[in-house]
């Protein structure tokens, strides 16, 4: 099963670390990710730039509006996404609880939705309307 893991960063805790400690944490995280790749549990992942770089694109009053923000994250900010290939939830919890990043903020672990059925039905609807 695929699990999408949202990794949060506790800014306060992170800022208390020395440069050397931060480097050691980054190294440990990257090394762990490499291990996940090696063992076939890595389904992809990206780190995120800070929330101040975010842009909101939404549909409002019949048109698309683009705004700065949302800046909602303050104490814990979303630092990155990681896609895990795991046997089941226990396996995913096991893999993520050994990730060094868990010491810098919580991970939210969510199963990916199986879209196969939805896509198949959509294909049927679209081909029927042709």
């Amino acid at each position, binding site marked *: *099963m695929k699990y999408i893991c949202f990794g949060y960063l506790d800014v306060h805790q992170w800022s208390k670390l020395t440069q050397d400690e931060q480097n050691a944490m980054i190294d440990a995280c990257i090394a762990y990710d490499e291990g996940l790749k090696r063992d076939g549990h890595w389904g992809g992942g990206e780190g995120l730039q800070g929330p101040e770089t975010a842009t909101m694109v939404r549909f409002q009053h019949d048109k698309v509006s683009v705004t700065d923000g949302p800046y909602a994250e303050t104490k814990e900010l979303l630092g990155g996404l990681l896609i895990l290939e795991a046997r*089941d*939830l*226990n*396996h*995913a919890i096991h893999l993520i609880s050994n990730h060094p990043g868990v010491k810098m903020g919580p991970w939210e672990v969510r*199963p990916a939705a199986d879209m196969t059925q939805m896509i198949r039905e959509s294909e049927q609807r679209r081909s029927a309307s042709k």
Partner: protein
Amino acid sequence: MASIAPDDIPPLLESLFRSDSRRILASLIRLLGDFDLAEDGMHDAFTAALESWPRDGVPDHPRAWLVSTGRFKAIDRLRRSARFNTSIDGLAELPDEGTPGPVEEDRVEDDRLRLVFICCHPALSPEASIALTLREVCGLTTEAIARAFLIPPPTLAQRIVRAKAKIREAGIPYELPGQVELPDRLGLVLKVVYLVFNEGYSASSGEAVTRPDLSGEAIRLGRQLLELLPDPEVMGLLALMLLQESRRATRASASGDLVLLEDQDRSRWDRGLITEGKALVKQALASRRVGPYALQAAIAAVHAEAVEPSATDWSLIIGLYTLLARIAPSPVVDLNRAVAVAMRDGPEAGLDLTDTLLSGRKMEEYHLVHSVRADLCRRLGRTEEALASYRQALRLVQQEPERRFLERRVAELQKTIPDPVELAPLRTTRG
């Protein structure tokens, strides 16, 4: 096939259902990977037995027969419902278990444990775990559980449906935790069992007659768990529940008012439960892996051993609380230790400890600290201070019998004060 008169089949099946339906369900959940399908399959199997056993005789291994029939019936159901097309292939290919004999017993017991561990999975909320455990492991009806927790049945039903959906969709596996996870996972199971027990133990109001006996259910669950997993903390929890249960009849007066431990009629404590509880405490302590439940049970056992309050070995109790505070620190444990110190060394010593606790601030919202402080001041004859603390406790207390107890104490104390005009009006509503 054993030959049993056809007329005897329905009662036989009824008793099989009572004794074995949870085991059968647990095995079917493993084989089918779905709670609802397993339950439907099990009911189909019992219905099928009612038809075929009078005709063909009772199979040699009735339980195994019911499991394998339940599995086939469930697969039949899947075949009939087209929307499960995709999942049916895997299931139909499952190797036939044949006719499992008594050698399969271990597997069946593991299934029962798996069921407990999946119901008490940390990814489920405690409320969901409690509901699911009572429904699936204990076999209580949704209505009975809802009544016990005083919530509308549809709310409870929805809680169970959501929990089952999360198990299915988030991929919570039907497996026993590994050695590394076991202590944490077992801790969670024990917490759920103890929550069930306390719900039944604290609910001492007049409506109790119409409720199912949740404490009894928790004890039954504890016994089952001990049978499956003889861990010292399981022994500890079961002992703790038995020892508390032994005092149930004396905990409340006929009018439903709270009776303190020192005022309880000890001749009415259930000796059978005490003997069983004490034996389990001894066994748990002998394991040398003593946990918080075993220690709390040991404390309860010391109380149970005292024929009258004055015979209580307070030094031993203080020692046990000190140990408990070390392995499971909590303000409640500190407070209980302060009470024990007051019993051994006098109210003054207890008051010092209580005031130290109160200065920690995190205790301020906890009604029992104020209630203890009030009692100690009362014993020291410091009436005004006692009244102030009782009022503080009354502002914070949640439970009705406890509130009545505090009000009684306040009324008694007020009688001893010559001029009641000076007293601020007492708040009698719940805070």
